[in-house]
């Protein structure tokens, strides 16, 4: 088999990530073709993983492989080639019991690579990106930006053409959904369609990038990475207060905080000199870890679990590496040793005040407690008022002289006036108090009561007498009742204020670092050597004198020479606009991850991103201004067969909206959406009894406008996610999620057909259309359709819509009971509207909200 033929076969199997023509003499690229092959088929035994390594031979290291196993230039003399082509099962590699097999093209490729000299190069993503020269292309008429040169060059090499630009209605809907997570309104569409200037599109981009909803859209994705949730996870899953962190993220995106700053404040905001409140809140990124409250859990075990989780998450989010694999053993594929993992872990295991495990419903320190200026002022005023009142009460108490003999009298039967606990003498009150009040009394009073009257010391006597005067002595009742009442009002308010004052979990470093150890097999009970906080050796070392803490680590990550951070981030930003990254395994840039579809473009974007100061909005603007982004998403079967995953980007991708965005869209088009930004999480409709099978939790359903907030404000219970989100692939957020799957299931259809929010949205949309200015059903249908999908229906769609409406009008005119029942579920005022018409339009709106196009970004 020739090398070109071998490569072609592998490409067609998706083993090699390319779909371009290859010259017959092309040199085999180690990084692209050979390393993944070795990683998949050989490195399990001949790789960095010490425990599993079957022999001393390491195929990931040139110095080990070259010699007998590989003789550069001489495949016929290389033991490796003899072994992989041997018919003898004893000698054959990979061994038959491994169930791994090399295909003929793979063998041909290995031979070709050895013939070429068996060059080893460092894995591409561990080499810092260098700004590449944009390629020359033939079809320059299509080019709108540098990005397009990279994309077009590959399309041309494959002998294909890019798609034409999408029409304007598609463009504004795509852009608005991509940048704000909401669909455009009718008037926004009108304005864009009527703007004939050359800059119309750019103006639209600028407007959307400055929308307050931009931050919400960006936050939604970031919160998956940050594994933000409103509960602790694990079995008991108590609630926590973290929404200030969520709002910090929204605000950071809205104010276009440079990404390096954004990373720094989240990883080490608490360690910055004179850390501001906002920076401390940001440090909550590392507190989003789940937390185990189960009885009998070992705190030490879970302290380890939390630090491991932080190290893994940091690795995934900023390095795009699966560091966590090295928790129990050396990383099998990437050059990360177990010791290096625990050195990285050592940055995260010294959280001051964090316990490993404790009971339910307890706040988890370290906390930052925040109050508004008003709350602060009120709280101070309350303290003052209470002080004055207590002085006042003490003075009144001092004035009362108890009858001395009272102590010796036998308790009288309570008279009418005394039924409610007031007595003429202390001893009677004491008897009563012991029987009825004991547990409710202050501790000091309780203790004094338990002592025989004769044995009480002076302090106990005073405590008791004073309490009796205030709360039990009938003659003084008139004086103390109003004073006590006022006292209770003030202390109640104080308690209430405490619950109103938000708190949030933050990071705080122990004064002295907790020692960290390598844990054998990841087991917290099997401590190995002590390790110091450090970064893996494959990367540039921490600078001399840099602090060995999260601050030092964060600065190291955002160093422009770091090979991964910028690449990983731009790859995710790209995903936002194409539904898939340039590296299709955004969670793994390591040896086993996919090679970029456009390596030059990825590096160009990464370098550009750093050049413009990690400016997120500016980079996004460059992406959406490109011709690549603006392409139509129409699917061509012939090209689809050739490039089923659209790796060449010959069109835009068409993909389903996120769970939250599907909700937001229904609420927005119906006019129900409450678009206030931020605040504590809310509790929209959830089926009654949804928790009843599962746990002890409550769902205190919100009221009023809070029922119609955007999806990202929905209370996020990690073990039992909000059902309509979970059905649409929202992650649990127990762990960092880089990419949500996008599935298509009947359970999803049931959500948009029947879930209460969607039914109310249909009703509201119907009322909105019926109250509009249009005076015929045809016009109304056009309008309703356009509100929902952003374009006018064509003739055949009009016909279908007309048919549905007609049948529904007929049905609900005949069955007025059904009409009433449907209309009764709405939440907007429908006074004056004909119930039959409203019901028919509600079911029509239900159809519109369920269209594939409605929940898809095209």
């Amino acid at each position, binding site marked *: 088999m020739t090398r070109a033929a071998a490569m072609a076969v592998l490409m067609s199997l998706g083993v090699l990530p390319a779909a371009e023509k290859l010259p017959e003499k092309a040199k085999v690229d180690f990084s692209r073709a050979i390393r993944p092959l070795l990683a998949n088929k050989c490195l399990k035994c001949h790789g960095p993983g010490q425990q599993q390594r079957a022999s001393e031979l390491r195929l990931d290291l040139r110095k080990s492989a070259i010699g007998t196993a590989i003789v550069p230039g001489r495949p016929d003399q290389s033991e490796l080639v003899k072994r992989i082509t041997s018919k003898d099962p004893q000698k054959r590699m990979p061994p038959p019991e491994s169930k791994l097999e090399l295909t003929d093209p793979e063998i041909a490729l290995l031979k070709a690579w050895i013939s070429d000299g068996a060059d080893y190069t460092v894995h591409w993503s561990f080499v810092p990106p260098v700004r590449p020269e944009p390629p020359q292309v033939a079809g320059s008429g299509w080019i709108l930006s540098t990005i397009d040169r990279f994309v077009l060059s590959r399309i041309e090499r494959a002998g294909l053409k890019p798609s034409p630009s999408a029409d304007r209605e598609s463009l504004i809907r795509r852009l608005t959904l991509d940048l704000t997570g909401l669909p455009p309104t009718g008037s926004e569409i009108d304005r864009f369609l009527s703007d004939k200037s050359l800059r119309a599109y750019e103006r639209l981009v600028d407007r959307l990038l400055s929308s307050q909803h931009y931050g919400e859209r960006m936050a939604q994705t970031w919160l998956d990475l940050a594994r933000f949730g409103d509960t602790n996870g694990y079995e008991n899953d108590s609630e926590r207060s973290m929404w200030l962190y969520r709002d910090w993220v929204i605000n950071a995106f809205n104010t276009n905080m440079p990404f390096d700053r954004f990373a720094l404040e989240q990883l080490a905001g608490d360690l910055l000199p004179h850390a501001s409140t906002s920076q401390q809140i940001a440090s909550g990124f590392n507190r989003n870890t789940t937390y185990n409250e189960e009885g*009998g859990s070992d705190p030490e075990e879970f302290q380890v679990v939390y630090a491991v989780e932080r190290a893994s998450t940091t690795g995934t989010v900023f390095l795009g590496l699966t560091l966590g694999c090295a928790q129990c053993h050396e990383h099998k594929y990437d050059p990360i040793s177990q010791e290096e993992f625990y050195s990285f872990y050592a940055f995260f295991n010294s959280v001051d005040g964090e316990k490993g495990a404790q009971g339910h419903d307890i706040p988890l320190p370290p906390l930052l407690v925040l109050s508004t200026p008003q709350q602060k002022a009120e709280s101070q005023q309350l303290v003052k008022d209470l002080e004055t009142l207590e002085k006042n009460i003490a003075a009144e108490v001092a004035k009362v002289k108890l009858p001395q003999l009272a102590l010796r009298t036998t308790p009288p039967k309570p008279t009418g006036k005394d039924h409610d606990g007031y007595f003429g003498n202390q001893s009677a009150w004491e008897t009563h108090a012991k029987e009825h009040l004991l547990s409710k009394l202050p501790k000091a009073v309780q203790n004094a009561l338990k002592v025989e009257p004769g044995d009480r010391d002076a302090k106990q006597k005073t405590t008791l007498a004073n309490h009796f005067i205030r709360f039990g002595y009938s003659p003084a009742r008139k004086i103390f009742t109003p004073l006590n009442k006022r006292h209770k009002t003030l202390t109640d308010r104080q308690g209430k204020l405490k619950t109103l004052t938000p708190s949030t979990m933050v990071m705080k470093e122990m004064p002295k670092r907790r020692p960290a150890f390598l844990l054998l097999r990841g087991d917290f009970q099997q401590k190995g050597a002590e390790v110091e906080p450090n970064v893996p050796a494959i990367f540039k070392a921490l600078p001399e004198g840099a602090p060995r803490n999260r601050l030092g680590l964060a600065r190291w990550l955002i160093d422009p020479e770091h090979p991964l951070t910028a690449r990983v981030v731009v790859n995710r930003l790209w995903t936002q606009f194409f539904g898939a990254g340039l590296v299709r395994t955004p969670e793994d840039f390591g040896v086993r991850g996919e090679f970029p579809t456009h390596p030059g473009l990825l590096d160009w974007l990464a370098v550009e991103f750093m050049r413009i100061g990690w400016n997120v909005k500016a980079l996004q603007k460059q992406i959406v201004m490109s011709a690549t982004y603006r392409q139509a998403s129409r699917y061509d079967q012939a090209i689809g067969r050739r490039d089923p995953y659209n790796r060449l980007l010959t069109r835009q991708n068409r993909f389903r909206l996120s769970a939250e965005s599907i909700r937001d869209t229904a609420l927005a088009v119906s006019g129900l959406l409450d678009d206030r930004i931020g605040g504590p999480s809310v509790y929209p409709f959830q089926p009654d009894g949804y928790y009843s099978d599962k746990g002890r939790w409550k769902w205190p359903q919100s009221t009023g406008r809070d029922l119609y907030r955007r999806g990202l404000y929905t209370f996020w219970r990690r073990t039992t996610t909000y059902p309509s989100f979970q059905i649409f692939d929202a992650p649990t957020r127990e762990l960092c999620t880089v990419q949500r799957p996008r599935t298509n299931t009947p*359970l999803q259809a049931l959500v948009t057909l029947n879930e209460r929010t969607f039914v109310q949205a249909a009703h509201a949309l119907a009322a909105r259309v019926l109250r509009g200015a249009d005076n015929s059903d045809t016009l109304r249908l056009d309008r309703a359709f356009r509100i929902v999908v952003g374009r006018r229906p064509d003739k055949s769609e009009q016909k279908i819509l007309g048919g549905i409406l007609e049948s529904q009008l007929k049905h609900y005119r005949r069955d007025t009971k059904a009409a009433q029942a449907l209309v009764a579920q709405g939440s907007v005022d429908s006074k004056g509207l004909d119930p039959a018409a409203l019901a028919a339009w509600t079911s029509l709106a239900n159809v519109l909200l369920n269209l594939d196009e409605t929940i898809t970004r095209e």
Partner: protein
Amino acid sequence: MTTPVLPLRPGPLAQVSPRRQFLARTSGGLGAAALAGLLQDQLQAAPSHRRPGALSATHIPARAKRVIYLFMAGGPSHIDTFDPKPKLAALNGQELPAEVRGKQRITLMTRKQKQLQIAASPMTFRKYGESGQVLNVHMPELAKVCDEIAIVRSLHSEPINHDPAVNMLQTGAGRPGRPCMGSWVSWGLGSENRSMPDFVVLLSGTKGQPVISRYYHSGFLPSRHQGVQFQSQGDPVLFLSNPGGIDGRTRGRLIRGINDLNRRRLELVGDPEIEARIDSFELAYRMQSSVPEMMDLSGEPKHVHELYGTQPGKVSFANNCLLARRMIERGVRFVQLYQRGWDMHSDIKNRMPKQCAEVDRPTAALLRDLKQRGLLDETLIIWGGEFGRTTYCQGELKATFGRDHHPRCFNAWLAGGGIRGGVTHGATDDFGYNVVENPVHVHDLQATVMHCLGIDHEQLVYRFQGRDQRLTDIGGQVVPELLA
């Protein structure tokens, strides 16, 4: 020689091809067939009613096609159910010898106890059946069919707290994030029916112990393979009922409208994903009638209710067992029941007989009923919890003592397709504290389950985070002694 499975790449487009294969064979349109005799339709399911899984063929001939997993949540005490330790009677109240305890960790609930007192079982045991299986006397019905079951006495695991331990049984790892057994099976083998989910979860028992959805989560597999928990309140499948004022006929009319418009869009933009959406709406519509029909136990004959001890409309393990049989009949691939109430930190003496009584009759009924219908041969039944319980009591030894968590040894039993009935496999020491013979790790149990389904557990893999992930993580060996 088996063909290795090419791992599917994760990502937004990963599941395109199998679905396209299916779509190529289905015709659109919601015709009369969808409205007509649904059950009959499913029983005579034409091949086009299947949605293929990731495996084009099983690795080895499948002995079972479907699974019912009776999960006993909380950790049933092995010493008090299937693994009697008569020698403990003489040692009752004495300290557990240090050499038996070894260096294993114990939970904080008992770690601070001054003493770890041996507590002999308050249960009575007897031998049953031709095979002589040993059970406590509070499972008289199971005793009658005990020749059908293979008991594992030497199961062992690592996690010592409920959540990670349940996760271990379900997903092969204590930490969260991985797909559970039902999801792997659904993904690997695909669907056998077109009007029901592939993987259904039912809950029963006391509510103290939470059963969280992560236990039946699809992890990194496409989320369509997640367990669908049938709710005990309201709609069994979430949002199954139409809103008031929309009856079944109207719903049918509206879905036809939705799909007419979707088909029009498909013509214009050509995205095959729209075909899948059309299909989803049709399946949703079919589920609206097939699920209530399946959930309705009132049509079952009296003798069946007597067999199981079921009462229509009630939430109980018995009802769930009968529902499991009905689901299996309709081609549901994996039914997972959770029965809570086994976490006996106190009062084993009184709680164990009650708990056994709750599960005994329905479990035996399920075995009998399936057998009688000729379904037991192709259905694998698994019974067991997340760990066993300690030989020593929690707190001081008193009549109402309880036991702490103990993952070092515990029991499970298997029955049905591919299983050799009447076997007792493995053994623990005289204290019921350590496995001494034929240890079966959780991964081994999982490998065996997969084996019965025709799956080589090392070959059903999914590439995620650079690794070819599998249910059994890095372990697992099939236990041949359990196989027929």
